[in-house]
């Protein structure tokens, strides 16, 4: 399968891919350091956990310039041999029988009793990475996720120095309620989206009730009906694509960024559609037409949204923050369909969606 940069076919600059190249070089360097760090740690571990004979446990061969045969032997040794039937030579890992973990209820338990009565300030020896506090995010995860898979979140800036005020303090003005917790980790804590923003969403409901309703104590902290959580997912549908997607508006701070994201999202989808309708296996690298000009209405498609009153509006008319607070869902329409709809701006009359 020919791998081609999707953008080069169009002859257009694709900032996303170009930006990754310098980072990639950095990544190479980082990876090397990381590996050196790791192999010394592996050795430390090995000394603690395994009998001295286990020094074939080394990570060196996994680092660079692995020949294919080496891979195969690594795989086949583990794959075809069981732990018990082969000699120590081929064992890459110590088996449980070599140094069985003691029952928790013998010596470690005694240790715990001691610990209950004293507070250790010496950091545990298990921690191998320099860290500001035992609770900080792991360095390796940071690096590998940062370089090889650029995420929107910049972990390095996610210091735990900032704290948000506890939620159940007395009512404070809006501005001081801004969340300043450390950078969000995707999918953590592991709760479903409908369980997030419970406190804020319950107050939003009550805001529309009559003033004589007594709201729960916690919900009182957020007088404005606005999710202040880490993400704001709204559905986005595109004409001609049966399955909608979701975008997290909190990930963007301007219409331009949203437009680019929408562009990328649906470019891929249109590709899949076109290829699957042609009946072939998807060629992921084939480039398709770019959805340009979703905002300036000059392109083939236009981005519209439905606000909290159910009205359909053109994206881009109101200031960004106002848009974020009223948008309920997004839609990418063919521009040719627009004139038939006569959409309104926020000032003029609106057409119900």
């Amino acid at each position, binding site marked *: 399968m020919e*791998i081609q940069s999707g953008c080069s076919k169009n002859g257009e600059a694709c900032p996303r891919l170009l930006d*990754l190249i310098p980072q990639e070089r950095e990544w*190479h360097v980082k990876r090397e350091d990381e590996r050196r760090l790791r192999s010394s740690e592996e050795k430390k*571990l090995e000394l603690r956990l395994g009998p001295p004979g286990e020094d074939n446990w080394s*990570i060196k061969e*996994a680092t660079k310039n*692995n020949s294919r045969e080496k*891979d195969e032997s690594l*795989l086949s040794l*583990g794959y*075809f041999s069981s732990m018990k039937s082969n000699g120590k030579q081929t064992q*890459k*890992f110590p*088996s*449980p029988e070599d140094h069985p973990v003691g029952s*928790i*209820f013998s010596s470690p*338990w005694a240790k*715990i009793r001691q*610990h*209950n009565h004293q507070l*250790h300030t010496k950091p*545990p020896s*298990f921690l191998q990475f320099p860290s500001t506090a*035992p*609770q900080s*995010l*792991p360095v390796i*995860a940071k690096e*590998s996720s940062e370089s090889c*898979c650029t995420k929107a979140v910049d972990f390095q800036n996610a210091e735990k120095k900032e704290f*948000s005020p506890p939620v*159940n303090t007395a009512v404070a003005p809006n501005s001081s309620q801004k*969340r300043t*917790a450390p950078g*969000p*980790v*995707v*999918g*953590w804590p*592991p*709760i*479903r*989206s409908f369980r997030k923003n419970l*406190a804020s969403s*319950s107050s939003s*409901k009550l805001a529309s009730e009559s003033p*004589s309703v007594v709201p*729960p*104590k*916690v919900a009182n902290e957020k007088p404005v009906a606005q999710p202040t959580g880490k993400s704001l997912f709204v559905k986005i549908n595109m004409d001609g694509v*049966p*399955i*909608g*997607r979701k975008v997290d508006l909190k990930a963007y701070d301007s219409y331009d960024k949203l437009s680019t994201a929408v562009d990328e999202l649906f470019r*891929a989808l249109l*590709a899949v559609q076109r290829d699957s309708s042609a009946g072939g296996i*998807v060629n*992921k*690298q084939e480039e398709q037409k770019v959805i340009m000009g979703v905002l300036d209405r000059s392109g083939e498609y236009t981005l519209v949204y439905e606000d909290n009153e159910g009205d359909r509006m053109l994206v881009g008319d109101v200031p960004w923050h106002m848009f974020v607070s009223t948008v309920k869902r997004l839609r990418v329409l063919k521009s040719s369909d627009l004139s038939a709809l006569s959409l309104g701006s926020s000032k003029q009359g609106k057409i119900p969606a």
Partner: protein
Amino acid sequence: MQKKMSYSFPNEVLEHIFSFIQSDKDRNAVSLVCKSWYEIERWCRRKIFVGNCYAVSPGMVIRRFPEVRSVELKGKPHFADFNLVPDGWGGYVLPWIAEMAGAYPWLEEIRLKRMVVTDESLELIAKSFKNFKVLVLSTCEGFSTDGLAAIAASCKNLRELNLQESDVDDLSGHWLSHFPETYTSLVSLNVSCLVSDEVSLSALERLVGRCPNLRTLRLNRAVPLDKIANILRCAPQLVEFGTGTYAAELRPDVFSNVFSNLAGAFSNCKELRSLSGFWDVVPAYLPAIYSVCSGLTSLNLSYATIQSPDLIKLVSHCPSLQRLLVLDYIEDGGLEALASSCKDLQELRVFPSDPFAVEPNVSLTEQGLVTISLGCPKLQSVLYFCRRMSNAALVTIAQNRPNLTRFRLCIIEPKTADYLSLEPLDVGFGAIVEQCKDLRRLSLSGLLTDRVFEYIGTYAKKLEMLSVAFAGDSDLGLHHVLSGCESLRKLEIRDCPFGDKALLANAAKLETMRSLWMSSCSVSFRACKLLGQKMPRVNVEVIEEREPPDSRPESCPVDKLYIYRSVAGPRFDMPPFVWTMDEDSALRLS
């Protein structure tokens, strides 16, 4: 003269005997006895469960089991619940429906979990299966109320429509009106996930009123509290009920009216055993349910943002409670009250009210869970979010409750150590797996080294599902699990320093499991290709959203990896960001 078994029983007798065997495992065993039993069994199997929709193709299922009446399919990996699986990944049900439409005209039940269901699929179901009875769409997405309208209009024998936590495009409440006036067979309706504010109350009341067998009714948030009484009066035989928003005005004239109406309606429901809903609770209205509390076995208060004193009052009225879902507003004090009131408690789930706050916003600690473990002798299943834990607490819990079968602990801040000793929580979780010999499901959190995996590999012999995040030091950890956990079916891992070694050394294990998910770990692209090449009966899929995995060095770790056993070969409905490592692609890409 010895007669062979197969000659002495006619097929019909064997078939009749097999019809008493419902469990899939037993059915599978029966089919392995001999060829004739295999044949007889396949013709009389009525229920199919496919834990991973990509493990087998619809055609294969249909060819082997021609007379199926009930199908259950699961699609996306569990971590999709937490937005770790990008949209468009897959799990489309349409191909299944399309093939079953022709092959199983008498299909009665479809149960789906984490699948993409479209209105087209729903319309196809509505028109293809004349005796369709049960539709359960759990955590599904991709469809709208238009599709539901088609189901409502066409399925005259529908018993159950359950949209459990699905993501539905709620276009209007009018889909309910598509149930014809002659339709009376509804037994179970769960629409609690519908989000629009529009709900056709009159259609709902009429529907409820004309279905005398209705046992389960879970409404959505849009149904106002003052309408609940009317609905309940139409269906006093309800066993399970979910309210909508549990808020109304407190002005004295309004309150006394709504409250007495509500309390009266609830007191008529003598069969009520399960309550849920409770969005936006105004505590003053809670006593309206007191009359049914003594019989309640299941209570879902996980949306109720009320404080501990109100929660304590409520649970102390429910001595028969077996299952409680609640927010951490209950605090340690509330859990203490729970432990002394509810001796039959089997399942407890405590969710975080403010998961992103750095400082604890409530006084819920490990102590609450310890108290519950001591006070509730029947406790089997725990899901607990908290902000601190200690090895001592975990050891105590393990000693108190060796009958635990599901233990999921989420300490909100990753890599949190034992707050007393500042040590890793290895020993605590080790105690859990050592004492709880029937443990089937475990989720780890907190600061953990390879040691905890050593314990798990040694002791957790019945463990079927393990969830790991921000834990371990090296491949040794993963190796312990893969080599030691004999019953392991599902393993999901994120942000752990596990790389190629353990995976490659235990490659054979992957065929004995349903699936393995690894994201933000250190498995290299090369290892993925190798696995894909060497293991034809396992699909190795790499998820990379930013750039193709082969545009970087082979030793670069992949972002996300999903490996599952399959007899259907690699799938072809993948989006651009999923790469399959089958034999061909491995050769092409190298």
